[in-house]
């Protein structure tokens, strides 16, 4: 018996690559009360963890899903970025760039 293949529709406003990045990514979301950050992975095995600071959340996100992009959702002002984490010895540098 065969397993069904997923058909792909024509692209919409957003490219398939952008949507794939978001579906596969780890999301770091500022809470609505602005008192912390949540790390959220999507899908059937998705989970949510809460942290006091953005850097703690990004560090956790890096461990949660190793090869996924980290998407940071800031509330005020509204901004969505992709975080890149570089480690050199004990020093960790987090750089954020625009989501494409």
């Amino acid at each position, binding site marked *: 018996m065969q397993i*069904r293949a997923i058909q792909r529709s024509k692209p919409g406003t957003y490219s398939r690559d952008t949507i794939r990045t978001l*579906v596969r990514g780890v999301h770091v979301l500022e809470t609505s009360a602005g008192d912390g950050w949540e790390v959220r992975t999507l899908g059937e095995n998705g989970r949510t963890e809460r942290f006091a600071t953005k850097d703690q959340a990004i560090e956790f996100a890096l461990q949660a899903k190793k090869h996924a992009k980290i998407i940071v959702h800031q509330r005020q002002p509204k901004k969505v970025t992709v975080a890149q984490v570089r480690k050199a010895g004990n020093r960790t540098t987090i750089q954020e760039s625009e989501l494409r």
Partner: protein
Amino acid sequence: MPAPSPRYDDSVFINCPFSPDYQELFRALVFAVADCGFLARSALEKNDSSETRIDKLYRIIAQCRYGLHDISVTELDPGNRLPRFNMPLELGIFLGARKFGSPSQRDKGCLILDRERFRYQIFCSDLAGQDPKSHGGKAADAVKCVRDWLRAERPSIRLPSGMRMWERYRQWMADLPVICDALLLEPDSLEFHDLATTIEEWLLENPW
């Protein structure tokens, strides 16, 4: 009659209301079609102003071997006291293509959905013998109807149960606000192809 698309055998035309109160059912139908391995098509696909609405419907129907027709909305519009006839009209075009179309159109198959199983006999008795199915206005039941129908169309392909498919839909729905937030969009106002792509990519990342 336009030439069938290369993906004719995998394409399902979804004929249903586009009103906000039907949105959950519509999304559940698109999800179930995709989770069964078929391509959902809709009149909500990108507009080309040079093509009339009826020509667009002819084109999409000609490109789809399968049709999913929900005729459950029969209520009168509160403003003008008239019902909407678009769904029965599009079902009629689909059945006409199957009856009078080119040989490639004559193998079309469809599923007709209503709220109650035999209610159509009151308002569209000519559908007798088409065996419409009932979703009771519930998205979970609509997913099961679609799954069972497409499973029967492709018996060689393994599919999860309707209940399992519904649970997957609910998980996708829970994830959708996060995806939309990143795109600076409202989950309720996704363009059709963005909706379909989001479902397809989610399914690719979450195989059963």
